[in-house]
Protein backbone atom coordinates (compact mmCIF):
# COMPACT_ATOMS: atom_id res chain seq x y z
CA UNK A 1 0.00 0.00 0.00
CA UNK A 2 1.36 3.41 -0.96
CA UNK A 3 1.27 6.47 1.25
CA UNK A 4 -1.39 8.10 -0.93
CA UNK A 5 -3.63 5.05 -0.68
CA UNK A 6 -3.17 4.81 3.08
CA UNK A 7 -3.81 8.50 3.68
CA UNK A 8 -7.03 8.43 1.66
CA UNK A 9 -8.35 5.59 3.79
CA UNK A 10 -7.54 7.16 7.16
CA UNK A 11 -11.01 8.65 7.87
CA UNK A 12 -12.55 5.20 7.55
CA UNK A 13 -9.69 3.59 9.42
CA UNK A 14 -10.64 5.86 12.29
CA UNK A 15 -14.36 5.21 12.04
CA UNK A 16 -13.64 1.49 11.89
CA UNK A 17 -15.51 0.71 8.73
CA UNK A 18 -12.65 -0.61 6.61
CA UNK A 19 -12.88 -4.29 5.84
CA UNK A 20 -10.38 -6.50 7.64
CA UNK A 21 -7.94 -6.69 4.72
CA UNK A 22 -7.76 -2.94 4.15
CA UNK A 23 -7.53 -2.27 7.82
CA UNK A 24 -4.60 -4.61 8.24
CA UNK A 25 -2.82 -2.99 5.28
CA UNK A 26 -3.31 0.53 6.64
CA UNK A 27 -2.18 -0.55 10.08
CA UNK A 28 0.91 -2.24 8.69
CA UNK A 29 1.75 0.85 6.67
CA UNK A 30 1.29 3.17 9.67
CA UNK A 31 3.71 1.09 11.72
CA UNK A 32 6.55 1.90 9.39
CA UNK A 33 5.67 5.31 7.99
CA UNK A 34 6.18 8.45 10.08
CA UNK A 35 4.58 10.92 7.62
CA UNK A 36 1.42 8.82 7.47
CA UNK A 37 1.35 8.79 11.29
CA UNK A 38 1.30 12.56 11.10
CA UNK A 39 -1.49 12.36 8.54
CA UNK A 40 -3.46 10.18 10.95
CA UNK A 41 -3.11 12.83 13.62
CA UNK A 42 -4.26 15.48 11.17
CA UNK A 43 -7.23 13.35 10.23
CA UNK A 44 -8.22 13.10 13.89
CA UNK A 45 -7.83 16.84 14.20
CA UNK A 46 -10.07 17.39 11.19
CA UNK A 47 -12.64 15.02 12.65
CA UNK A 48 -12.67 17.08 15.83
CA UNK A 49 -13.50 20.13 13.72
CA UNK A 50 -16.27 18.41 11.81
CA UNK A 51 -17.68 17.01 15.07
CA UNK A 52 -18.19 20.48 16.56
CA UNK A 53 -21.65 21.54 17.66
CA UNK A 54 -23.22 24.29 19.71
CA UNK A 55 -22.58 23.30 23.35
CA UNK A 56 -25.54 21.81 25.17
CA UNK A 57 -25.73 24.73 27.58
CA UNK A 58 -25.87 27.07 24.60
CA UNK A 59 -28.77 25.17 23.06
CA UNK A 60 -30.69 25.23 26.34
CA UNK A 61 -30.07 28.96 26.73
CA UNK A 62 -31.31 29.64 23.21
CA UNK A 63 -34.39 27.51 23.82
CA UNK A 64 -35.16 29.67 26.85
CA UNK A 65 -34.69 32.87 24.89
CA UNK A 66 -31.27 33.81 26.22
CA UNK A 67 -27.99 34.40 24.42
CA UNK A 68 -25.92 31.21 24.47
CA UNK A 69 -23.24 31.46 27.13
CA UNK A 70 -19.69 30.55 26.17
CA UNK A 71 -20.16 30.92 22.46
CA UNK A 72 -20.55 33.81 20.07
CA UNK A 73 -24.32 34.07 19.42
CA UNK A 74 -23.77 34.90 15.75
CA UNK A 75 -21.58 31.84 15.36
CA UNK A 76 -24.17 29.71 17.13
CA UNK A 77 -26.82 31.05 14.79
CA UNK A 78 -24.73 30.29 11.73
CA UNK A 79 -24.09 26.80 12.95
CA UNK A 80 -27.75 26.15 13.73
CA UNK A 81 -28.66 27.21 10.22
CA UNK A 82 -26.44 24.54 8.72
CA UNK A 83 -26.47 21.72 11.27
CA UNK A 84 -29.56 19.51 11.24
CA UNK A 85 -28.48 17.72 14.42
CA UNK A 86 -28.26 20.90 16.47
CA UNK A 87 -31.46 22.26 14.93
CA UNK A 88 -33.32 19.08 15.89
CA UNK A 89 -31.93 19.16 19.42
CA UNK A 90 -32.90 22.80 19.79
CA UNK A 91 -36.42 21.94 18.70
CA UNK A 92 -36.63 19.29 21.43
CA UNK A 93 -35.49 21.83 24.03
CA UNK A 94 -38.04 24.34 22.76
CA UNK A 95 -40.77 21.75 22.99
CA UNK A 96 -39.75 21.05 26.58
CA UNK A 97 -39.93 24.76 27.32
CA UNK A 98 -43.40 24.89 25.83
CA UNK A 99 -44.46 22.18 28.25
CA UNK A 100 -43.08 24.25 31.09
CA UNK A 101 -44.87 27.39 30.00
CA UNK A 102 -48.19 25.74 29.37
CA UNK A 103 -48.85 22.98 31.82
CA UNK A 104 -52.39 22.39 30.73
CA UNK A 105 -51.19 21.09 27.38
CA UNK A 106 -51.61 17.35 27.53
CA UNK A 107 -48.97 15.11 26.00
CA UNK A 108 -49.38 11.77 24.26
CA UNK A 109 -48.34 9.35 25.51
CA UNK A 110 -48.56 10.79 29.02
CA UNK A 111 -45.21 11.61 30.59
CA UNK A 112 -44.03 8.53 32.43
CA UNK A 113 -43.71 9.09 36.14
CA UNK A 114 -40.68 8.20 38.19
CA UNK A 115 -42.72 7.40 41.24
CA UNK A 116 -46.33 7.03 42.25
CA UNK A 117 -48.62 9.75 40.97
CA UNK A 118 -47.10 13.00 42.16
CA UNK A 119 -49.07 15.89 43.47
CA UNK A 120 -48.06 18.32 40.79
CA UNK A 121 -48.76 21.88 41.73
CA UNK A 122 -50.86 23.26 38.94
CA UNK A 123 -50.41 26.88 38.07
CA UNK A 124 -53.35 28.89 36.96
CA UNK A 125 -52.89 29.76 33.33
CA UNK A 126 -53.38 33.17 31.93
CA UNK A 127 -55.00 32.26 28.67
CA UNK A 128 -53.55 31.08 25.45
CA UNK A 129 -49.94 31.11 26.53
CA UNK A 130 -48.79 28.29 24.31
CA UNK A 131 -50.00 30.29 21.38
CA UNK A 132 -48.36 33.44 22.70
CA UNK A 133 -45.09 31.60 23.07
CA UNK A 134 -45.38 30.22 19.60
CA UNK A 135 -46.02 33.66 18.21
CA UNK A 136 -43.08 35.06 20.13
CA UNK A 137 -40.86 32.41 18.61
CA UNK A 138 -41.74 33.69 15.23
CA UNK A 139 -43.96 30.71 14.58
CA UNK A 140 -46.36 30.93 11.74
CA UNK A 141 -49.83 30.01 12.82
CA UNK A 142 -51.26 27.50 10.47
CA UNK A 143 -54.91 27.12 11.41
CA UNK A 144 -55.35 24.46 8.82
CA UNK A 145 -57.70 21.59 8.64
CA UNK A 146 -61.36 21.69 9.39
CA UNK A 147 -62.19 24.66 11.57
CA UNK A 148 -65.22 25.29 13.68
CA UNK A 149 -66.18 28.23 11.56
CA UNK A 150 -64.35 30.69 9.39
CA UNK A 151 -65.01 33.45 11.91
CA UNK A 152 -63.54 31.44 14.78
CA UNK A 153 -60.48 30.67 12.71
CA UNK A 154 -59.96 34.32 11.90
CA UNK A 155 -60.39 35.30 15.55
CA UNK A 156 -57.82 32.75 16.62
CA UNK A 157 -55.37 33.88 13.96
CA UNK A 158 -55.90 37.54 14.93
CA UNK A 159 -55.37 36.77 18.59
CA UNK A 160 -52.17 34.89 17.90
CA UNK A 161 -50.84 37.58 15.59
CA UNK A 162 -51.49 40.23 18.24
CA UNK A 163 -49.16 38.61 20.75
CA UNK A 164 -46.16 40.82 21.50
CA UNK A 165 -42.68 39.47 20.80
CA UNK A 166 -40.87 38.04 23.79
CA UNK A 167 -37.28 38.06 24.94
CA UNK A 168 -36.72 34.86 23.03
CA UNK A 169 -35.96 36.86 19.90
CA UNK A 170 -32.54 37.89 21.18
CA UNK A 171 -30.65 35.15 19.45
CA UNK A 172 -32.59 35.59 16.24
CA UNK A 173 -31.60 39.24 16.23
CA UNK A 174 -28.00 38.19 16.74
CA UNK A 175 -28.06 36.25 13.53
CA UNK A 176 -29.68 32.95 14.43
CA UNK A 177 -31.96 31.33 11.89
CA UNK A 178 -35.67 31.90 12.18
CA UNK A 179 -37.14 29.46 14.71
CA UNK A 180 -39.09 26.58 13.36
CA UNK A 181 -42.77 27.21 12.87
CA UNK A 182 -45.18 25.94 15.48
CA UNK A 183 -48.34 24.57 13.99
CA UNK A 184 -51.76 24.94 15.54
CA UNK A 185 -54.69 22.97 14.33
CA UNK A 186 -58.20 24.03 15.17
CA UNK A 187 -60.42 20.97 15.47
CA UNK A 188 -64.17 21.32 15.73
CA UNK A 189 -66.30 18.81 17.61
CA UNK A 190 -68.12 16.18 15.58
CA UNK A 191 -71.34 17.40 17.17
CA UNK A 192 -71.04 20.64 15.20
CA UNK A 193 -71.64 18.75 11.97
CA UNK A 194 -75.09 19.03 10.50
CA UNK A 195 -77.39 16.14 11.28
CA UNK A 196 -77.09 13.33 8.78
CA UNK A 197 -73.61 14.27 7.61
CA UNK A 198 -70.47 12.41 8.55
CA UNK A 199 -67.84 14.33 10.51
CA UNK A 200 -64.96 15.28 8.24
CA UNK A 201 -61.69 14.46 9.98
CA UNK A 202 -59.17 17.20 10.70
CA UNK A 203 -56.01 16.21 8.94
CA UNK A 204 -52.78 16.38 10.90
CA UNK A 205 -50.30 18.52 8.97
CA UNK A 206 -47.04 17.00 7.85
CA UNK A 207 -45.00 19.54 9.78
CA UNK A 208 -41.59 18.91 11.29
CA UNK A 209 -42.83 20.39 14.55
CA UNK A 210 -45.76 18.61 16.17
CA UNK A 211 -49.05 20.47 16.03
CA UNK A 212 -50.86 21.75 19.06
CA UNK A 213 -54.45 20.66 18.65
CA UNK A 214 -56.93 23.27 19.76
CA UNK A 215 -60.03 21.19 20.37
CA UNK A 216 -62.77 23.78 20.13
CA UNK A 217 -65.60 23.45 22.61
CA UNK A 218 -68.77 25.40 23.09
CA UNK A 219 -69.61 23.47 26.25
CA UNK A 220 -70.27 25.63 29.31
CA UNK A 221 -70.18 22.89 31.95
CA UNK A 222 -67.50 23.24 34.60
CA UNK A 223 -65.47 20.24 35.64
CA UNK A 224 -62.42 19.77 37.83
CA UNK A 225 -60.52 18.48 34.84
CA UNK A 226 -60.96 16.82 31.52
CA UNK A 227 -59.79 13.51 30.13
CA UNK A 228 -59.26 12.56 26.52
CA UNK A 229 -59.36 9.07 25.11
CA UNK A 230 -57.92 8.44 21.67
CA UNK A 231 -59.52 5.53 19.84
CA UNK A 232 -58.80 4.15 16.41
CA UNK A 233 -61.35 3.40 13.69
CA UNK A 234 -62.30 0.13 15.32
CA UNK A 235 -62.86 1.82 18.65
CA UNK A 236 -59.73 0.35 20.19
CA UNK A 237 -58.24 2.60 22.86
CA UNK A 238 -54.86 3.92 21.69
CA UNK A 239 -53.99 6.24 24.54
CA UNK A 240 -55.51 8.46 27.19
CA UNK A 241 -54.58 11.83 28.63
CA UNK A 242 -55.93 12.72 32.06
CA UNK A 243 -55.69 16.01 33.92
CA UNK A 244 -56.40 18.38 31.04
CA UNK A 245 -57.57 21.90 31.85
CA UNK A 246 -59.81 23.77 29.47
CA UNK A 247 -58.33 26.99 28.16
CA UNK A 248 -60.40 30.04 29.15
CA UNK A 249 -60.78 30.77 25.43
CA UNK A 250 -62.73 27.56 24.98
CA UNK A 251 -60.17 25.03 23.82
CA UNK A 252 -58.71 21.80 25.09
CA UNK A 253 -55.05 22.29 24.14
CA UNK A 254 -53.37 19.02 23.25
CA UNK A 255 -49.85 18.49 22.02
CA UNK A 256 -49.63 15.57 19.67
CA UNK A 257 -46.05 14.68 18.82
CA UNK A 258 -45.05 13.58 15.37
CA UNK A 259 -44.87 9.82 15.09
CA UNK A 260 -47.20 9.05 17.98
CA UNK A 261 -50.02 7.83 15.79
CA UNK A 262 -49.85 5.50 12.82
CA UNK A 263 -51.61 6.62 9.66
CA UNK A 264 -55.37 6.30 10.09
CA UNK A 265 -58.45 8.00 11.46
CA UNK A 266 -58.89 8.53 15.17
CA UNK A 267 -61.63 9.72 17.49
CA UNK A 268 -60.76 11.88 20.46
CA UNK A 269 -63.39 11.47 23.19
CA UNK A 270 -63.44 14.19 25.83
CA UNK A 271 -64.80 13.49 29.30
CA UNK A 272 -65.49 15.99 32.05
CA UNK A 273 -64.45 14.84 35.52
CA UNK A 274 -65.87 16.29 38.71
CA UNK A 275 -65.12 14.28 41.82
CA UNK A 276 -66.12 10.71 41.06
CA UNK A 277 -68.37 11.83 38.22
CA UNK A 278 -67.14 11.32 34.64
CA UNK A 279 -69.34 12.52 31.84
CA UNK A 280 -68.81 12.18 28.10
CA UNK A 281 -68.61 15.52 26.32
CA UNK A 282 -67.43 16.21 22.79
CA UNK A 283 -65.78 13.90 20.30
CA UNK A 284 -63.34 14.99 17.60
CA UNK A 285 -62.17 13.17 14.52
CA UNK A 286 -58.63 13.51 13.26
CA UNK A 287 -56.78 11.82 10.47
CA UNK A 288 -53.16 11.06 9.92
CA UNK A 289 -52.11 10.31 6.38
CA UNK A 290 -49.20 8.21 5.25
CA UNK A 291 -46.04 10.26 5.53
CA UNK A 292 -47.82 12.95 7.54
Amino acid at each position, binding site marked *: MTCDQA*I*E*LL*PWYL*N*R*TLDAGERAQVQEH*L*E*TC*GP*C*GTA*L*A*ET*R*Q*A*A*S*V*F*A*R*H*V*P*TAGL*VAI*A*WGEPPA*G*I*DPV*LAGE*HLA*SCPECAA*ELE*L*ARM*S*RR*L*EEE*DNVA*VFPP*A*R*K*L*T*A*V*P*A*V*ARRSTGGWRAAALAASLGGLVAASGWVYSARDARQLADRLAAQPPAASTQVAQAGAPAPQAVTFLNVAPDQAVERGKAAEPAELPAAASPPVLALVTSGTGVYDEYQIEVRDERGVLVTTAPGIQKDPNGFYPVLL*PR*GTLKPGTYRLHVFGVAGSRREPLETYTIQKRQGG
Partner: protein
Amino acid sequence: MVAEDYRMISMAIDDRDMVDRFLRGESEAVGTVDGWISRAAWPYQRRLADRWDDVLQDVRLEVTRLLGQGKFRGESSLRTYLWRVVSHTCLDQIRAQSKWKWADLETLDQGDGPAAAVHVPASNREDRDLLLRVLQRVPQDCREMWRMILAGLSYKEMSARLNVAEGTLRVRVLRCREKAASLRRTLLEGGKGQPT
Protein backbone atom coordinates in the same frame (compact mmCIF):
# COMPACT_ATOMS: atom_id res chain seq x y z
CA MET B 1 -40.98 47.66 48.03
CA VAL B 2 -43.59 47.09 45.38
CA ALA B 3 -46.04 44.21 45.18
CA GLU B 4 -43.99 42.55 42.46
CA ASP B 5 -40.96 42.40 44.77
CA TYR B 6 -43.03 40.84 47.55
CA ARG B 7 -44.35 38.29 45.08
CA MET B 8 -40.80 37.36 43.97
CA ILE B 9 -39.59 37.05 47.54
CA SER B 10 -42.59 34.91 48.36
CA MET B 11 -41.87 32.70 45.36
CA ALA B 12 -38.23 32.35 46.34
CA ILE B 13 -39.22 31.27 49.85
CA ASP B 14 -41.66 28.75 48.39
CA ASP B 15 -38.95 27.35 46.13
CA ARG B 16 -36.43 27.09 48.96
CA ASP B 17 -39.01 25.34 51.05
CA MET B 18 -39.68 22.96 48.19
CA VAL B 19 -35.94 22.20 47.83
CA ASP B 20 -35.63 21.52 51.56
CA ARG B 21 -38.64 19.24 51.55
CA PHE B 22 -37.42 17.44 48.42
CA LEU B 23 -34.00 16.84 49.96
CA ARG B 24 -35.67 15.55 53.14
CA GLY B 25 -37.57 13.11 50.94
CA GLU B 26 -41.02 14.39 51.73
CA SER B 27 -43.32 12.53 49.41
CA GLU B 28 -45.32 15.50 48.16
CA ALA B 29 -42.21 17.49 47.24
CA VAL B 30 -40.56 14.44 45.68
CA GLY B 31 -43.74 13.78 43.73
CA THR B 32 -43.87 17.36 42.49
CA VAL B 33 -40.26 17.38 41.37
CA ASP B 34 -40.60 13.96 39.76
CA GLY B 35 -43.67 15.18 37.92
CA TRP B 36 -41.74 18.16 36.58
CA ILE B 37 -38.86 15.92 35.54
CA SER B 38 -41.18 13.53 33.71
CA ARG B 39 -42.91 16.33 31.86
CA ALA B 40 -39.75 18.27 31.07
CA ALA B 41 -38.08 15.12 29.74
CA TRP B 42 -41.07 14.02 27.69
CA PRO B 43 -39.95 15.53 24.33
CA TYR B 44 -36.71 13.57 24.54
CA GLN B 45 -38.40 10.22 25.15
CA ARG B 46 -38.48 9.07 21.55
CA ARG B 47 -34.81 9.82 20.96
CA LEU B 48 -33.78 8.05 24.17
CA ALA B 49 -36.30 5.25 24.03
CA ASP B 50 -33.85 2.39 24.40
CA ARG B 51 -32.63 3.52 27.78
CA TRP B 52 -35.40 5.83 28.84
CA ASP B 53 -35.79 4.55 32.38
CA ASP B 54 -32.05 4.85 32.98
CA VAL B 55 -32.07 8.37 31.59
CA LEU B 56 -34.92 9.40 33.87
CA GLN B 57 -33.04 8.06 36.86
CA ASP B 58 -29.86 9.83 35.71
CA VAL B 59 -31.81 13.06 35.46
CA ARG B 60 -33.22 12.59 38.92
CA LEU B 61 -29.77 11.90 40.34
CA GLU B 62 -28.44 15.01 38.65
CA VAL B 63 -31.29 17.12 40.03
CA THR B 64 -30.74 15.72 43.51
CA ARG B 65 -27.00 16.35 43.24
CA LEU B 66 -27.43 19.94 42.12
CA LEU B 67 -30.05 20.77 44.72
CA GLY B 68 -28.01 19.02 47.42
CA GLN B 69 -24.97 21.11 46.51
CA GLY B 70 -26.99 24.30 46.69
CA LYS B 71 -26.54 25.06 43.01
CA PHE B 72 -30.05 26.47 42.79
CA ARG B 73 -29.67 30.10 43.79
CA GLY B 74 -33.10 31.39 42.92
CA GLU B 75 -32.07 33.22 39.75
CA SER B 76 -35.10 31.70 38.11
CA SER B 77 -38.02 29.79 39.57
CA LEU B 78 -37.20 26.30 40.79
CA ARG B 79 -39.51 24.90 38.17
CA THR B 80 -37.66 26.66 35.32
CA TYR B 81 -34.30 25.74 36.81
CA LEU B 82 -35.21 22.07 36.94
CA TRP B 83 -36.71 22.18 33.49
CA ARG B 84 -33.42 23.46 32.12
CA VAL B 85 -31.40 20.91 34.05
CA VAL B 86 -33.57 18.15 32.58
CA SER B 87 -33.16 19.52 29.05
CA HIS B 88 -29.43 19.81 29.51
CA THR B 89 -29.08 16.28 30.84
CA CYS B 90 -31.30 14.76 28.16
CA LEU B 91 -29.48 16.57 25.35
CA ASP B 92 -26.17 15.37 26.75
CA GLN B 93 -27.53 11.83 26.74
CA ILE B 94 -28.69 12.16 23.14
CA ARG B 95 -25.30 13.46 22.12
CA ALA B 96 -23.52 10.73 24.00
CA GLN B 97 -25.48 7.99 22.29
CA SER B 98 -25.20 9.40 18.77
CA LYS B 99 -21.64 10.59 18.96
CA TRP B 100 -19.10 8.77 16.88
CA LYS B 101 -17.13 6.46 19.12
CA TRP B 102 -14.54 9.16 19.49
CA ALA B 103 -13.40 8.00 22.89
CA ASP B 104 -12.87 4.55 21.48
CA LEU B 105 -10.82 6.01 18.69
CA GLU B 106 -8.64 7.82 21.16
CA THR B 107 -7.56 4.46 22.50
CA LEU B 108 -7.73 2.60 19.21
CA ASP B 109 -4.30 3.54 18.04
CA GLN B 110 -2.47 3.54 21.32
CA GLY B 111 0.24 0.98 20.99
CA ASP B 112 -0.40 0.66 17.30
CA GLY B 113 3.06 1.78 16.31
CA PRO B 114 4.25 5.20 15.15
CA ALA B 115 0.72 6.46 14.73
CA ALA B 116 0.23 6.35 18.48
CA ALA B 117 3.29 8.47 19.04
CA VAL B 118 1.79 11.42 17.21
CA HIS B 119 -0.12 13.26 19.86
CA VAL B 120 -2.90 15.53 18.73
CA PRO B 121 -3.78 18.38 21.05
CA ALA B 122 -7.20 17.61 22.46
CA SER B 123 -9.86 19.83 21.01
CA ASN B 124 -11.15 20.75 24.46
CA ARG B 125 -7.92 22.58 25.03
CA GLU B 126 -8.56 24.79 22.08
CA ASP B 127 -10.92 27.65 21.77
CA ARG B 128 -14.32 26.13 21.15
CA ASP B 129 -15.30 29.02 19.01
CA LEU B 130 -12.23 28.56 16.86
CA LEU B 131 -13.19 25.04 15.82
CA LEU B 132 -16.73 26.13 15.15
CA ARG B 133 -15.46 29.04 13.08
CA VAL B 134 -13.33 26.67 11.05
CA LEU B 135 -16.31 24.41 10.55
CA GLN B 136 -18.48 27.27 9.37
CA ARG B 137 -15.92 28.20 6.74
CA VAL B 138 -15.57 24.72 5.33
CA PRO B 139 -17.74 24.12 2.24
CA GLN B 140 -21.11 22.55 2.93
CA ASP B 141 -20.38 19.43 0.88
CA CYS B 142 -17.30 18.80 3.03
CA ARG B 143 -19.41 19.03 6.17
CA GLU B 144 -21.93 16.62 4.68
CA MET B 145 -19.28 14.06 3.79
CA TRP B 146 -17.58 14.28 7.15
CA ARG B 147 -20.91 14.09 8.92
CA MET B 148 -21.42 10.75 7.23
CA ILE B 149 -17.98 9.58 8.34
CA LEU B 150 -18.71 10.68 11.89
CA ALA B 151 -21.99 8.81 11.66
CA GLY B 152 -20.00 5.65 10.94
CA LEU B 153 -20.59 5.13 7.23
CA SER B 154 -18.04 3.22 5.20
CA TYR B 155 -16.66 4.75 2.02
CA LYS B 156 -18.59 2.17 0.04
CA GLU B 157 -21.85 3.24 1.65
CA MET B 158 -21.01 6.88 1.10
CA SER B 159 -20.06 6.25 -2.49
CA ALA B 160 -23.42 4.64 -3.15
CA ARG B 161 -25.34 7.31 -1.26
CA LEU B 162 -23.59 10.22 -2.95
CA ASN B 163 -23.41 8.47 -6.31
CA VAL B 164 -19.71 9.14 -6.82
CA ALA B 165 -16.91 6.71 -7.53
CA GLU B 166 -15.13 5.40 -4.45
CA GLY B 167 -11.77 6.80 -5.55
CA THR B 168 -13.27 10.22 -6.24
CA LEU B 169 -14.95 10.23 -2.85
CA ARG B 170 -11.76 9.36 -1.01
CA VAL B 171 -9.88 12.19 -2.74
CA ARG B 172 -12.68 14.67 -2.02
CA VAL B 173 -12.69 13.76 1.65
CA LEU B 174 -8.94 14.20 1.77
CA ARG B 175 -9.25 17.65 0.17
CA CYS B 176 -11.85 18.58 2.78
CA ARG B 177 -9.53 17.50 5.54
CA GLU B 178 -6.75 19.59 4.06
CA LYS B 179 -9.12 22.54 3.68
CA ALA B 180 -10.13 22.31 7.35
CA ALA B 181 -6.50 22.10 8.44
CA SER B 182 -5.59 25.10 6.32
CA LEU B 183 -8.47 27.18 7.67
CA ARG B 184 -7.57 26.23 11.21
CA ARG B 185 -3.99 27.35 10.71
CA THR B 186 -5.16 30.61 9.16
CA LEU B 187 -7.52 31.35 12.03
CA LEU B 188 -4.92 30.43 14.62
CA GLU B 189 -2.36 32.69 13.04
CA GLY B 190 -4.89 35.50 12.80
CA GLY B 191 -5.55 35.47 16.52
CA LYS B 192 -8.16 33.84 18.68
CA GLY B 193 -10.81 32.87 16.24
CA GLN B 194 -10.41 35.98 14.11
CA PRO B 195 -9.87 35.30 10.44
CA THR B 196 -7.17 37.30 8.76
